[in-house]
């Protein structure tokens, strides 16, 4: 846990509207401070008059008017910080989601893509507490003490001196105690997160516990761990609350340091009641916002962490891919292509040529680099060394959007989007595309007939509700919808299918390949029979196989 600055300057660059919101917040802070001082002045006048049994109508009217102004300022300040939070969240959400176009799809599909999705959702919502809670108190923590001091200088300069000397004690003690608390928290952190994580761990492992007949026995373990979690949390809280207590006592003692001489001078007649009341009403106000900022800081940490993550996840500049050359239908040439990932090398020095209209099957054990080969042709993966040329155009510098428009792709496990079956098939195609024809070609029509709402059946998050075979046919229908595609890429379209689905999918796939260049990863003889050539990929090395007829 690193120390966080109260404000991240990167935010101003990312979300320029924040500048305006901060300016309004600052103005509201100054106005609030002035009103606080005037309000105390008016109230002191009212009370001093009342002490003599008189009603000071002007002062009372002024007090109520000032209260109304302060209410308006509280509203404005709350609204502007909430607006700022909403604007920042919206802007970061759009930018974070937009940044997916600059990411490698494999990165996005993995663990880190998942945490990006979480960050965009619940993560950024944590910013509300920061903007509406911490930030305004921080502003008031500057403006109110200054205004109070300025007023006290005129009313009673000895009190002003005491306040001026003691106010810095709040941030100083805050830093000292906060630092101590942070050390203690950090020590507890590992333990806490481990214990908190254990509950999730137990829930995830419930099927396993059940399989070993240990689920009921584990209830006591959960109780013991939850109890240990409580004990550890309480140890941390004790320190955290103690720091709040210290700050409160510092403020109380400071107020007492001001109040005692005031009282004595009042007794000796060296001061008027009105001034004494003003000092009493104003002094606590000076210490309050700084203390409040300290206590709100904890609640806003989560949001600050999310903000830091979001700002760090966004690339500094937004490189607009130059509209490079558009590869046309032509031979596909891989020359000396090597693809290295963090830990493994997926392809090593691969050179091969695929002529237009040729159908190439790729076989090999799992993890050998077959999918990487397809990803290269789609431009999802760039070669670490070597080139991929289509019709003589290097894909590394090509207009990939235009290139992909000529490619039909059937992934191993197509993503099903939240929306209707029709939306899912139509993905990226114009609205008037002939979805039903494509569905018939992909043997999807029989699947649709069996769905509760036919074409309008909604596919939930991650396409829950469809079997692998049905999902595969949706992917095929998508590919069929691109009837002008020159190149068809298929990644094990019949893996994980039952026999009935497989027959349908194989037939559809063979039809899809008709008249186009095709590159497909496949194992089943029925599909391999459609290939002109068979390539074998093993440990990143591609070898051409000669089929042995039987």
């Amino acid at each position: 846990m690193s120390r966080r600055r109260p404000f991240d300057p990167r935010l101003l660059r990312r979300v320029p509207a924040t500048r305006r919101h901060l300016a309004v917040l600052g103005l509201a802070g100054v106005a609030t401070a002035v009103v606080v001082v005037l309000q105390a002045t008016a109230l002191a006048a009212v009370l001093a008059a009342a002490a003599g049994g008189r009603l000071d109508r002007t002062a009372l009217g002024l007090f109520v008017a000032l209260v109304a102004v302060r209410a308006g300022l509280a509203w404005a300040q709350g609204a502007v910080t909430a607006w700022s939070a909403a604007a920042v969240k919206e802007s970061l959400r759009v930018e974070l989601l937009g940044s997916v176009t600059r990411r490698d799809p494999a990165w996005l599909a993995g663990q880190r893509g998942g945490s990006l999705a979480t960050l965009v959702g619940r993560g950024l919502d944590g910013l509300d507490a920061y903007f509406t809670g911490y930030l305004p108190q921080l502003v008031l923590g500057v403006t109110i003490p200054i205004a109070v001091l300025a007023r006290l200088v005129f009313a009673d300069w000895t009190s002003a001196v005491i306040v001026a000397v003691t106010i810095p004690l709040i941030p100083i003690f805050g830093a000292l105690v906060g630092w101590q608390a942070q050390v203690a928290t950090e020590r507890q952190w590992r333990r806490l997160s481990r214990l908190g994580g254990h509950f999730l761990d137990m829930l995830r492992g419930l099927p396993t516990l059940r399989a070993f007949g240990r689920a009921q026995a584990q209830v006591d373990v959960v109780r013991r761990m939850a109890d240990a979690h409580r004990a550890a949390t309480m140890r941390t809280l004790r320190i955290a609350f103690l720091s709040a207590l210290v700050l409160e006592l510092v403020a109380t003692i400071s107020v007492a340091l001001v109040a005692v001489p005031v009282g004595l001078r009042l007794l000796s007649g060296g001061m008027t009641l009105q001034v004494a009341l003003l000092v009493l009403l104003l002094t606590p106000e000076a210490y309050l916002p700084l203390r409040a900022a300290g206590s709100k800081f904890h609640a806003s940490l989560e949001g600050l962490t999310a903000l830091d993550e979001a700002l760090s996840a966004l690339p500094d500049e937004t490189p607009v891919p130059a509209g490079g050359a558009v590869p046309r239908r032509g031979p596909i040439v891989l020359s000396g292509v090597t693809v290295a990932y963090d830990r493994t090398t997926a392809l090593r020095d691969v050179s091969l040529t695929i002529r237009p209209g040729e159908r190439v099957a790729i076989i090999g054990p799992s993890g050998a680099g077959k999918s990487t080969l397809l990803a290269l042709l789609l431009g999802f993966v760039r070669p670490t060394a070597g080139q991929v040329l289509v019709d003589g155009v290097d894909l590394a510098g090509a207009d990939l959007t235009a290139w992909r428009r000529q490619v039909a792709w059937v992934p191993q496990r197509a993503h099903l989007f939240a929306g209707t079956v029709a939306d899912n098939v139509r993905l990226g195609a114009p609205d008037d595309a002939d979805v039903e024809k494509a569905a018939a070609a992909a043997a999807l029509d029989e699947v649709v007939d069996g769905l509760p709402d036919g074409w309008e059946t909604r596919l939930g998050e991650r396409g829950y509700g469809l079997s692998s075979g049905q999902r595969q046919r949706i992917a095929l229908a998508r590919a069929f919808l691109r009837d002008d595609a020159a190149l068809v890429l298929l990644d094990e379209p019949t893996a994980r299918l039952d026999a009935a689905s497989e027959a349908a999918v194989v037939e559809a796939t063979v039809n899809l390949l008709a008249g186009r260049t095709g590159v497909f990863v496949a194992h089943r003889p029925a599909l391999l029979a459609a290939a002109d050539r068979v390539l074998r990929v093993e440990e990143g090395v591609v070898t051409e196989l000669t089929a042995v007829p039987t």
Partner: protein
Amino acid sequence: MTAAERAVLRVARPWLSRLLGAGLLAAGTELAGLALMATATWLLITAAGQPPVAALTVAIVAVRTLAIARGVLRYTERLAGHDAVLRIITEVRTRIFRTLADRPARATDRSGDALSRLVSDVDAVQDLLLRVLVPGAAAGLVAVLAVIGAAIVSPPAALPLAIGLLLAAVALPALGSALTRRTAARVAPLRGALAVDAVDLTAGAADLAAFGATDTALAKAAGRAAELSRLERRLALVGWAVDGAGVLLAGATAAVVVLTALHAGTSGTLVGVLAVGTIAAVESALALVGAARQRTQLGTALTRVAALLDEPAAARADDARPDDDAVPGLDQVSVTYRAGAAPALDGVTLRLPPGSRVAVVGPSGAGKSTLLAVLAGAVRPDSGRVAGAGDPHRVGGLFADAHVFHAPVRDNLLLARPGAADDELAAAAAPAGFLDWVRDQPAGWDTEVGEDGGQLSGGQRQRLLLARALLLRPEVLVLDEPTEGLDPAAADAVLAAVVAASPGALVLVTHRLQGLAGFDEILVLDSGRVTQRGRHADLVTQPGWYREQWLVQQADEQGYLTLRG
């Protein structure tokens, strides 16, 4: 009070006295603050009359005491409140776990995301008690005592104070909820939709890019984000207007109290006390506005938690006890997960006498894992008979959803046989090929494996799972893809060692057909039905899935193909 809140309070009952104590301490804190300002004001106004110092001594001591007491009370209140609530959370977690443990396995397993959400939902219970119930009750108590105090000082002034407090504690929170309810109800679904957009854009990034649909999807998500932002701004505008009204209410009430008290001829000193006390009392009652706002936000999470707290403990009826002495197996078993869907298992029969070796193969989704689940009793068949299910020591082993716990290797293994000695662990780990790795670790059996075995390589994690299954030594050992993630040579070696080390019957689900030559029976499943059964030597000669798959795998591994037949 909603049903979910009542359910939470029922769980909290044993700790209600602690919560009550925390509430009283919270009220005490507020009262100390109120009394501090009131006494200090009294002190100053009285001092202005220049009485002898002795007349002020009590008040001076009271001010000092109250100032210290306020801080100390707040500290103890926060500690007591958190302690009580964390104790209740312990109980809530335990109950949720027990409910889920009692519940028979569902056809649709809860996703990892739903589980993480459940863990954070428990926090809603904490917020309900700590940020709604305790401060709400304390504010109510302070309001009542403030009115009583005012009535003693100046009966006529108590009325405007009571009205002001009622407005602050009841009318404003109600107004706030009423004004924001409709907008707030639209925010939650919109957040959900945006979360789905985020998943579609990340997990579906490749599909979107390949089909040129990224920009459309981005525009849709951006539209949702903008709409959400618009609703949040509207909510803030109304919500903070209510807060502003609260500030105005505190000042206005104080003004009316001063006017009324002066009019009624209350002593000047006490008018000051009343004014300062009124502001403090109304401000403390305004805490209810925040509590009400918080409460509306907790609704959905609390409902989800309450559903797991309320479920009757005896959900698992023992109506169909398997006959205990029968040879474990299945007789004409069928399973259908969802009404209208194709059966996951359709009339499967399988007998597992001691020492038998059976393999179950077939395409993915054919029903292999369901077969194991029925055999072990995790899934009930819709028709047919099952023998031996429900007792891990009769039928048990390694299932597809096996989890590695964030604990040392030893604890993970002991799950199968609590109290097993180290040499028993070694005897189970050796055939799984896990023993050498354990011996190489400095911490040996006490090596931490990380979250879901994240510190282990995929192969080591698999070997750990396999060793755990072997340690169980059940009558029928069930292994679902035991060598997944191992390279072919290692997979063959491990499988051979495991088969040799299993004295009882063995049921193996595998996609790899190498090494099945010695098995007594191989079942080929397709769409829930047994399409072929027999020994390896026979199956490779018959046309069908098994032979095709065998040839493809041979070709894959040996580098030649017999393709076009």
